[in-house]
């Protein structure tokens, strides 16, 4: 080990056992012994948990007492603990960029079968880091002003909750919703499990609070089209779709919706169970309570010919067929994505007969028919208007099924129980069957609710339903009924249940455009399309992009309490950022020496962020520091090797390659 400095770097290498996560596979003492032999390494140590306070103090003590001026920590992924160690190094008086992390957990001990090979790989990874750190130079994070406004994308219960929290804290919130009203799926529900609160009664006060809040700017019938910038300074373009109604003039009186001559548009809010007009307000509690003219169905907008009864009916002259889509540009410091979910397309499972057998309905359709504001006024009725004397509820339709979705949608067991209760409440004589795989009653009060339903006369049959068919004439006593074939796996018999109605408890799926949205905001989504959190346990609402948070079902299926909790967490995460006046960003940006630059312009055109300008006076390219994001494209494109990316210089990368292959 090096004894004296003489201007030579003195590197400290700290290898973490991570309990047994690393030490269980990698022979840490031999790695430490190896590290100690590397050039410029003055200290090499092993510790059980480097990230713990004593672990960090170990490094700090060496910096102060042993004159360590470069630090390598071989532990987990930098995504996990780079900030921890940078801070520790900085607190000990060393520039935090004189630190390099060697990832020997995610990239080695967890993925390598053979302990000897894992140990070898750890040595190479550490060697690369030690070589690199020699060439690292002190850097200072760039401090930029923080925009204190927040954008929230998606106006379901998650977006509503997060908006209110942030707006109450005094921050300006832009809430963007693609539909004409906020409310999301929760606005469609009848009751909520297990407390049986009326969904609208608990949601609509929050919706109206959003509509009235002085700090919330509501952008409904709008979609985000472009996102640029970084934490603290995002620039977002929003397309406000033309609704052909001036919402400043519209009073929500519904006269236009009553007078519109196009009457047969399937009503999305009631899951297509009844019709709306082309001029419509989605539901009576809509926020904003403003009319929208459906451009795909309006006669005037599609054919250019209509007597425009809506215009005649509108007192305040709010209808404006000349309205165009409008692009709005907003600037915010943080973003919360709460774009929700979509229901599984039940027609994909042919054998359940959805779409062919009229009384096979989806769970959302059931929500609407049991809801007093729904198409049947809250009466649970078959399509022919009769009251069902027996109902089968089929669980896991499109969930827990490798043909469709592997995941459990989490809420279906509980809403199925809720449906059973509602049926028993409305129609006490009606038989209710639940065909389930397992009952997953995981939340507070949920198991108790299940117990309660067992005492309400509901029949529970353990087994996934095989098929639903129309009973044939030969099946005496079952004429006109639906036959549910299911194996009762507890009794070991196949049963054929004649019922009047079948409710399919369908899966929750990611939004169809989830991938494009994730791409636009710069984070990942799983193969099922659910957004990936920064850390599944400890940062469940963060994303890999600083300043962008996720909440609600866009991250994965969840119930309302969990959604609201996540929305609060996302709001707190955003608040912790936008409450600051400035934000520090990585200084890994490019620099072009005007003395060396020949002014050939190659980098100018290649820069993805237009951060390089040609300076005529200097006859050289110049990096606009505030616009440079640090991709390094200019560095690798320059024929003369003039641009330098701080923190990723050629010297550093060359040294890392040498170390990796040493």
């Amino acid at each position, binding site marked *: 080990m090096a004894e004296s400095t003489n201007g030579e770097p003195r590197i400290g290498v700290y290898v973490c056992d991570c309990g047994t996560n690393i030490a269980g596979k990698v022979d840490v003492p031999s790695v430490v012994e190896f590290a100690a032999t590397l050039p410029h390494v003055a200290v090499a140590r092993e510790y059980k948990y480097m990230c713990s306070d004593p672990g960090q103090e170990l490094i700090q003590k060496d910096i102060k007492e042993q004159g360590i001026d470069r630090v390598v920590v071989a532990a987990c992924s930098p995504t996990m603990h780079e900030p921890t160690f940078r801070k520790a190094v900085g607190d000990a008086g060393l520039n935090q960029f004189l630190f390099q992390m060697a*990832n020997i*957990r*995610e990239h080695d001990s967890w993925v390598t079968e053979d302990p000897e090979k894992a140990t070898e790989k750890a040595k190479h990874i550490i060697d690369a880091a030690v070589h690199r750190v020699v060439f690292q130079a002190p850097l200072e994070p760039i401090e930029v002003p923080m925009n204190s406004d927040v954008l929230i994308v998606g106006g379901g219960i998650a977006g509503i909750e997060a908006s209110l929290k942030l707006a109450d804290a005094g921050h300006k919130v832009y809430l963007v919703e693609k539909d004409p009203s906020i409310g999301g799926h929760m606005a469609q529900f009848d009751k909520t499990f297990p407390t049986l609160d009326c969904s609208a009664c608990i949601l609509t006060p929050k919706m109206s609070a959003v509509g009235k809040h002085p700090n919330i700017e509501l952008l409904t019938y709008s979609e985000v089209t472009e996102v640029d910038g970084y934490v603290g300074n995002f620039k977002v373009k929003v397309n406000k779709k033309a609704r052909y109604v001036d919402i400043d003039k519209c009073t929500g009186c519904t006269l236009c919706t009553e007078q519109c001559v196009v009457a047969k548009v399937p009503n999305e809010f009631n899951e297509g169970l009844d019709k709306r007009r082309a001029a419509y307000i989605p539901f009576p509690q809509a926020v904003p309570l403003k009319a929208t003219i459906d451009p795909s169905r309006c006669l005037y907008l599609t054919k250019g010919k209509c007597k425009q009864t809506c215009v005649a009916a509108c007192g305040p002259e709010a209808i404006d067929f000349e309205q165009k889509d409008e692009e709005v540009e907003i600037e915010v410091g943080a973003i919360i994505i709460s774009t929700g979910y979509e229901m599984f397309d039940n027609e994909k499972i042919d054998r359940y007969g959805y779409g062919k057998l009229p009384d096979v309905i989806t769970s959302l359709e059931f929500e609407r028919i049991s809801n007093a504001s729904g198409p049947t006024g809250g009466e649970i009725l078959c399509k022919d208007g009769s009251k069902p004397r027996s109902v089968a509820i089929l669980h896991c339709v499109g969930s827990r099924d490798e043909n469709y979705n592997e995941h459990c949608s989490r809420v279906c067991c509980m809403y199925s129980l809720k449906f059973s209760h509602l049926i028993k409440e409305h129609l006490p004589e009606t038989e209710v069957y639940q065909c389930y795989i397992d009952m997953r009653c995981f939340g507070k009060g949920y198991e108790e609710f299940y117990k309660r339903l067992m005492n309400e006369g509901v029949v529970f049959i353990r087994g996934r339903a095989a098929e639903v068919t129309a009973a044939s004439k030969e099946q005496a006593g079952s004429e006109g009924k639906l036959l549910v074939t299911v194996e009762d796996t507890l009794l070991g018999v196949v049963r054929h249940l004649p019922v009047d109605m079948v409710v399919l408890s369908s899966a929750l799926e990611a939004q169809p455009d989830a991938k494009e949205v994730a*791409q636009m905001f710069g984070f990942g989504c799983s193969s099922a399309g659910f957004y990936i959190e920064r850390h599944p346990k400890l940062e469940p609402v963060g994303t890999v992009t600083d300043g962008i948070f996720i909440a609600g079902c866009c991250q994965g299926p969840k119930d309302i309490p969990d959604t609201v909790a996540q929305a609060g967490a996302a709001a707190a995460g955003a608040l912790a950022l936008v409450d600051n006046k400035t934000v520090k960003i990585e200084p890994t940006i490019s620099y072009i020496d005007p003395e060396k630059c020949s002014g050939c312009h190659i980098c100018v055109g290649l820069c993805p962020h237009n951060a390089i300008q040609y300076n005529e006076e200097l006859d050289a390219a110049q990096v606009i520091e505030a616009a440079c994001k640090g*991709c390094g494209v200019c560095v*690798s494109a320059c024929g003369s090797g003039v641009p330098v990316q701080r923190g990723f210089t050629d010297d550093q990368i060359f040294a*890392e390659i040498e170390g990796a*292959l040493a």
Partner: protein
Amino acid sequence: MSANDFEPRIVGFLCRWCSYNGADLAGTSRMKYPPNLIPIKTNCSGRVDPTHIMKAFAEGADGVLISGCHPGDCHYINGNWRTAGRFPMMEILLEQLNIDPRRLRLEWVSAAEGDKWAHVVTEFVEQIRELGPLNWQGQFHNEYEEEQQEAVTA
């Protein structure tokens, strides 16, 4: 050295937004793959300079992998397209330098594709194993010596 005991040495350049996180996910999910690739993190795959690739071969790498975000997913809008654009040029360069272009591979691995990362590394290690050791510097050296020899004997 027989093909069986040849352990390929591979350098992987991973962009920090997609592929590095994808490799992390493979780790978090405890997927297993061969240990022959040493990862080097760059902000963007667009930062990977042809000289980095040549440096790796010169330092004794048998293969080089560049892995970035899927086209359209780049954190820097289109940095990965720059890499993709340079790639055919790199292949020609490698051929001219007597290096089988199959020793250089470009992949798109997203932050969600831990399984793809494990698969890519496994497959690439196998491919390099089949191609055998490169020993490019040694080869270069031998050629130089041969030339010298020829010059002397001529």
